[in-house]
């Protein structure tokens, strides 16, 4: 693809994820097919070798995450993607990679669950993503784009971010964003890290001793309790810093709002219509859209006006984010859920009517 930044092109989400990753410096992709993200795997299979990279179709998601572990340990900028049940299979690997402090960019194009669920869109991987499905104390920064353009922008910087924090970075994009089309602009390709520069720029990588006076060791096994405790505290110093630096959100019209919506990803696009429907009825509605789900943007909730009567958490799950919303408002406002599950996307009218009825309870 020879597109320059200024030109608008029409892309499907899954294609855009691949192109943005390559332009952001990704040169290695490991994956295993699963709907609704297959066009991405196909895109990487077709494009990555043309751009000096390598594509591997693994024999399973468990194999894929462990191959990514290996590529990252050797200093490569590696990208893996899957959808909900496939990401579930990768959780052990993600825990190991967090402990080993390796950069991997992970994309989850979420579908309905639990179990094999459905191939229709869902947001029920919120807990899996933000709490971690693997064992032990660790965190993964999670970003939830609400458009293809925003997905491109986040993926473009995700590889540098993962390198900086020496930690996986996850993008949680629901099936709608993977499958929809959108006119977008693509950023200029970044120069990927040359193999010869890895020993210098990633001194921790297993790249041979070279000019170094030591061998790098990558591991997650620490049998001495004292060693492991020191290591976990070291990780949490890093996470504390990440919580300060990686918070991202959009907030609109929180002053004077009678009702405030909290939503992420596709749901936030629907909510933006709902806010206007309230305005048409002369009711002021505000909105908070967490972009970083971990760290959760608690500071946004400090801006909610005391006049607000109720906060609505609009989600495509049974209220997984609502628990974070409740913690963030600390009892200052009632928090209620408006949701659909099973792969069903509510209409703006449905969210409007349900939340108007809820607002009526607090008038």
């Amino acid at each position, binding site marked *: 693809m020879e597109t320059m930044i200024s030109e608008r092109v029409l892309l499907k989400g899954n294609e855009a994820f691949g192109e943005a990753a390559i332009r952001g410096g990704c040169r290695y992709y490991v994956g295993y097919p699963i709907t609704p993200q297959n066009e991405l795997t196909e895109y990487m299979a077709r494009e990555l070798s043309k751009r000096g990279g390598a594509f591997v179709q693994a024999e399973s998601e468990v194999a894929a995450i462990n191959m990514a572990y290996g590529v990252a340990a050797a200093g490569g900028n590696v990208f893996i993607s899957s959808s909900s049940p496939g990401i579930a299979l990768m959780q052990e690997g993600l825990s190991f990679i967090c402990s080993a402090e390796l950069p991997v960019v992970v994309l989850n194009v979420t579908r309905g669950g639990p179990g094999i669920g459905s191939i229709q869109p869902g947001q029920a991987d919120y807990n899996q993503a933000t709490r971690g499905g693997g064992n032990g104390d660790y965190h993964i920064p999670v970003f939830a784009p609400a458009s293809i353009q925003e997905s491109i922008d986040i993926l473009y910087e995700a590889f540098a971010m993962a390198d900086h924090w020496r930690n996986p970075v996850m993008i949680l994009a629901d099936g709608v964003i993977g499958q929809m089309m*959108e006119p977008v602009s693509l950023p200029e390709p970044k120069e990927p890290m040359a193999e010869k520069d890895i020993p210098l720029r990633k001194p921790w990588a297993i790249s041979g001793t070279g000019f170094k006076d030591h061998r790098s060791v990558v591991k997650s096994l620490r049998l001495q309790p004292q060693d492991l405790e020191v290591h976990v505290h070291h990780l949490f110093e890093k996470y504390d810093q990440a919580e300060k630096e990686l918070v991202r959100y959009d907030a609109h019209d929180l002053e004077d709002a009678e009702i405030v919506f909290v939503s992420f990803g596709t749901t936030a*696009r629907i909510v*933006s219509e709902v806010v206007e429907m309230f305005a048409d009825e002369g009711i002021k509605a505000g909105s908070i859209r967490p972009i970083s789900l971990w760290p959760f943007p608690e500071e946004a909730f400090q801006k909610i006006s005391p006049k607000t009567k109720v906060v609505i958490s609009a989600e495509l799950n049974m209220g997984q984010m609502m628990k974070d919303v409740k913690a963030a408002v600390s009892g200052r406002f009632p928090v209620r859920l408006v949701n659909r599950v099973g792969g069903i996307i509510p209409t703006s009218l449905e969210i409007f009517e349900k939340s108007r009825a809820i607002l009526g309870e607090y008038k």
Partner: protein
Amino acid sequence: MRPIEEKRIVAVVGHFGSGKTEFCVNFALERAKHHKNTALVDLDIANPYFRSRERRDLLEGAGIKVYGSFYKREIAAELPALTADARSAFEDDETLVTVDVGGDASGAMIVVQFYRYFTAGEYDLLCVVNKNRPETATVEKAIRYIDEIELKAGLKTTGLINNTHLLRETTIGDVEKGYHFCQEISAKLDIPIHFSCCPVPLAEDLRRRGEETGIDYRIMPVALYMRETWLDRKP
């Protein structure tokens, strides 16, 4: 008006994301305005979302029979199979059939099983072209796609549909640019441009533009039936 008239069976192919489904839904609704018996056969077994069968109620409300890879009202399964009744539309000589074929050569392969209904001169295989899709942005790339589709479908493309758009950002300039692009493909492959698609709000402007420049675009005003309005909200 050039002497272009679509045949009874119109199958629509193209690169995935080129806008086949939106065209088919609009075209089938247009046909249903003038004919009693019309059908839409949804052969897209590749795409998990945004399939024309999702607008079954709208289509059936307009008197169009809808066939495809679904059983009763089940539309969300990912079944690479078709129900046998899809053939009935092809069998009935009185029915105008619009066929929404899946994207790319792999999607087009499914047409093969209906080969006996595609007699030379009695069908149209129209390829949708959107110049704003990077994979079909040059004449060479677009023709390569058409070649691959023809090879897998075992059928010759009989015409082009200029569907150069950027969804709700589409301008008259996009349609014009796409038309001239399709003219180049048309000249190389010696097949006509059947339609230029255009968002409904721009159709009148495009018609006037055509009169000024002496171009008969054969405008197909396209309403975005498949696209929820919130998909175009800036988050």
